[in-house]
């Protein structure tokens, strides 16, 4: 047994987290910053955090992930990290020549109380930021929220710094994509294009963390939202923000700073969330929904009805981030599956509220927990108590999957033992087809592997 000490006996915990279902803010800030063109993320703290965050993202994408660090010493930890950051800014612009440096803090610099805004202002005064280049900063202490919070904070920082309302309305819609994969970003852009909605997607990690093999390395790949585009977001007609945890802050900032109103919607996972996204897009872009989109939806529904028998009543345990768990749960219920255990380490009261709204009619008995001590250990204990037919979550689920013999579909962050997430989206109707395909594959592989020989099926 890989997790040989996990028993079904749940004891109340107040202080100990075991096998977390979240990680820390800066990794989210780093990922968001990669979605801006020409941007070099910078971790203001000891070099360990930066090394861990880069490694985590690199393993997930199998792509270069560049970021620098303030490399704190004991001295900077006591007297503050201003000197380190000033020197770092100078070095980064001289050696690595980015357009933008996106600084995020760490637990260490936050605990010390470094004021990033003041340090960056000083860097500017001291002439350490070359003409036409930018340093954007976000406060991302990991003892608040989770990796998702860091993503939201960095995104907010970008629009706060760049977006500008020049009072000339541009016929375009801002899309805040939430923490999704580059494949999803591409898919969002594809859908918007079919809908003929002019848009700016922020961030956009496609063509950044899914670059082609060319024999040449580009430190700043061609993808990413450009400065010009982010500036112009201040002139857009409106914003569609996907996922409250990741995108709401930036949407509010755009509203407050540039008077661009926003619509809050879920990340477009599954049928209904995709429907809402499409409708939001149609309203915001003042366009009608083209037949091609209805056909995509139709193909999804066709597949669902075809395969319903394999999904009906299946018990599922899932863990991950609120923004993806909420629409995913809704999708599973629409498929008549039973998402019985749902866990997220990311705090936020809205999670339970949203979940109970979604679950109350069809599956009120589902166990849902988020925030402190809502971890994979607890979820595993629930599974020990009464098993499930399917697991959906990040790679760490493979230990539970093997111990319990449960089919497993990888979704979320990080996925470090399989490929595909960079290339095949899970958002939109096409994305839902992929989720379905993955779930059916896992469930049916188990049937094929375990069914008695006499009832082994050729056609399924």
């Amino acid at each position, binding site marked *: 047994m*890989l997790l040989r*000490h996990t028993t079904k006996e749940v*004891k109340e915990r*107040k*202080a*100990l*987290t*075991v096998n*977390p279902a*979240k*990680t*820390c803010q*800066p990794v989210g800030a780093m990922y968001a910053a990669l979605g801006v063109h020409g941007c070099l993320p*910078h971790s203001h*703290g*000891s*070099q*360990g*955090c930066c*090394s*861990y965050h*880069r*490694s*985590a993202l*690199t*393993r997930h994408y*199998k*792509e270069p992930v*560049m*970021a*620098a*660090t303030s*490399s*704190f010493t*004991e001295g900077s*930890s006591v007297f503050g990290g201003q000197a*380190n950051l000033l*020197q*770092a*800014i*100078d*070095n*980064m612009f*001289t*050696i690595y020549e980015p357009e933008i440096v996106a600084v995020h803090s*760490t*637990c*260490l610099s936050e*605990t*010390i109380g470094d004021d990033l805004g003041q340090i960056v202002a000083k860097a500017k005064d001291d002439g350490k930021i070359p003409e036409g280049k930018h340093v954007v900063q976000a406060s991302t202490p*990991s*003892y*608040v929220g989770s990796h998702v919070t860091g993503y939201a904070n960095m995104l907010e920082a970008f629009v706060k710094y760049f977006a500008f309302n020049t009072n000339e309305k541009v016929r375009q819609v801002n899309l805040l994509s939430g923490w999704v994969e580059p494949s999803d970003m591409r898919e969002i852009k594809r859908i918007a294009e079919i809908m003929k909605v002019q848009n700016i997607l922020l961030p956009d990690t496609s063509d950044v963390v899914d670059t082609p*093999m060319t*024999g*040449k*390395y580009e430190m700043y790949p061609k993808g990413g939202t450009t400065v010009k585009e982010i500036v112009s977001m201040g002139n857009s007609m409106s914003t569609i923000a996907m996922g409250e945890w990741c995108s709401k802050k930036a949407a509010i900032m755009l509203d407050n700073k540039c008077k661009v109103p926003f619509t809050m919607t879920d990340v477009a996972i599954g049928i209904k969330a995709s429907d809402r996204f499409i409708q939001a897009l149609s309203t915001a872009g003042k366009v009608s929904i083209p037949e091609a989109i209805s056909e995509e939806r139709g193909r999804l529904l066709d597949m669902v009805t075809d395969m319903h028998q394999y999904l009906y009543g299946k018990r599922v345990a899932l863990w991950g981030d609120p923004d993806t768990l909420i629409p995913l749960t809704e999708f599973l219920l629409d498929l008549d599956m039973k998402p019985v255990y749902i866990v997220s*380490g990311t705090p936020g009261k809205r999670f339970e509220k949203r979940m109970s709204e979604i679950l109350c009619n069809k599956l009120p008995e589902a166990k849902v927990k988020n925030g402190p*001590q809502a971890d994979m250990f607890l979820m595993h204990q629930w599974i020990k108590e009464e098993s499930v037919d399917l697991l959906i979550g990040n790679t*760490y689920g493979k230990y539970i999957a093997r111990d319990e013999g449960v089919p497993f579909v990888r979704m979320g962050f990080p996925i470090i033992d399989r490929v595909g997430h960079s290339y095949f989206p899970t958002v939109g109707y096409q994305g839902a087809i992929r989720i379905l395909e993955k779930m059916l594959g896992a469930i049916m592989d188990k049937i094929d592997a375990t069914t008695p020989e006499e009832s082994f099926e050729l056609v399924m």
Partner: protein
Amino acid sequence: MVIKKDYTNGLPDPSELKNEILAKYPRKVAKKRAKAMVVNDPEEQQEIAANIRTIPGIITQRGCTYAGCKGVVLGPTRDIINLVHGPIGCSFYAWLTRRNQTRPTEGEENFMTYAFSTDMQDENIVFGGEEKLKEAIREAFDMFKPKSIGIFSTCPVGLIGDDVHAVAREMKAELGINIFGFSCEGYRGVSQSAGHHIANNGIFKHVVGNDNRERTGKFQVNLMGEYNIGGDAFEIERIFEEIGVTLLSTYSGNSTVESFAYSHTADLNMVMCHRSINYIAEMMEEKYGIPWVKVNFIGAESTAKSLRKLADYFGDKELSAKVEEVIKREYAKVKAVADVIRPKVEGKLAMMFVGGSRAHHYQDLFNELGMKTVSAGYEFAHRDDYEGREVIPDIKIDADTRNIEDLVVEKDETHYREDLVKKKAELEKTGYTFKDYQGMMPEMKKNSLVIDDVNHWETEKLIEFYKPDVFCAGIKEKYVVQKYGVPLKQLHSYDYGGPYAAFGGAINFYKEMERMLATDIWKLVDAPWKHEPEIVGCVTADA
């Protein structure tokens, strides 16, 4: 088409490259980096700047003290709950990411698949986290009933004044199990290296010597600085078993705290990774009189040499005969594979920037294949790992090193091995050497470029200049280098392959080089139309 330099008459002088690299840096940075890059001359005693703080803003390979302490040294030990005191991230990233294999018996404890954290929140930072830590320890004890708990401090802990050692003492008294803390906050040292030292101190202080177990074998040894990445330690264990040497404990691949506790009953300590573990070896010698020798089980030749060194130490005919028998048999297998692969990779160029010993040890494997190491360096080693242990007295003690407690070790009168001290003295007369690490530089070719703490900019320039056939580094470098069309072999994680230690490992490594270097896949990178003249014409159906 990549045009290669001609290396048949030795390596080219890379001074020009070095200047080009430095030219990009701001003056202060250039001054510092110049000392960390040495154009090697094995005949000279050259000095390299190592274990020096990374300059802020530089994209470095290095990690932190915590990573060295929790991740490297204690991570591979299975019968202990490693509780990380801090915000969630530090614990999350060190969760199962280092591939230390372990083989618990049925029913034995194994906590390595778990991540434990106090997941500090805002209020813990403001009001202190000691109470939460205590509560977490109680909860862990309550649920898992471990025999030991280690507490690892991450960056904020020291600053807010939490005293993990006091908490450990208190909880040890309350729960009656072994509990000890590490002040391994990330900023404490230059790199992971400080964490190794802190971990060594902690284990020595709180564990080693706790169990004065009776002897169980005729020849008892510990293997130190072997972390069982990809099963390396298993390969070595297999040989020890066959030759009749009892391996009491490995620091710390496939290890247990239980075995650390009686590891002081060994007759000899064999040190693989000098950087990460020499402290314990030194302290064991001071306290118990157990001598240590440097060994290396990477490469078939080095493995044979190390086994002979082991046999010579015990001076037992039967053991020596057994060792020779194993070497002869295994060598035949190794040679059979090398004979096939060597012609395919001979003369190819390698460079390696990794760790605190592997950038040195792996050169042996490349040599066996007839490949040339043109440039190498460590991520977190010290001058002695480059220049040899004789420079230790000359190394400046800086503020970072002073941060780490220097344990005062006293002789343990009851368990001190006078017999081993005598044995050592006698062997030394015959030319047998103890604690003899010569470092990487004397073994590298003239004009090879030795670089400490290589960074991203330097990596780019190195690739441009040398156009290597294989680059060895870690996960953060992997895909950068490969985008250039140069295959990268990870020498931390082995790219999820291995084992590469000992004879079986050498065979695996040769085959891996064949896979990476004899493939045609890179030739497909350019699309066929890239090299053809563009098709011109008009776009009509009958054109």
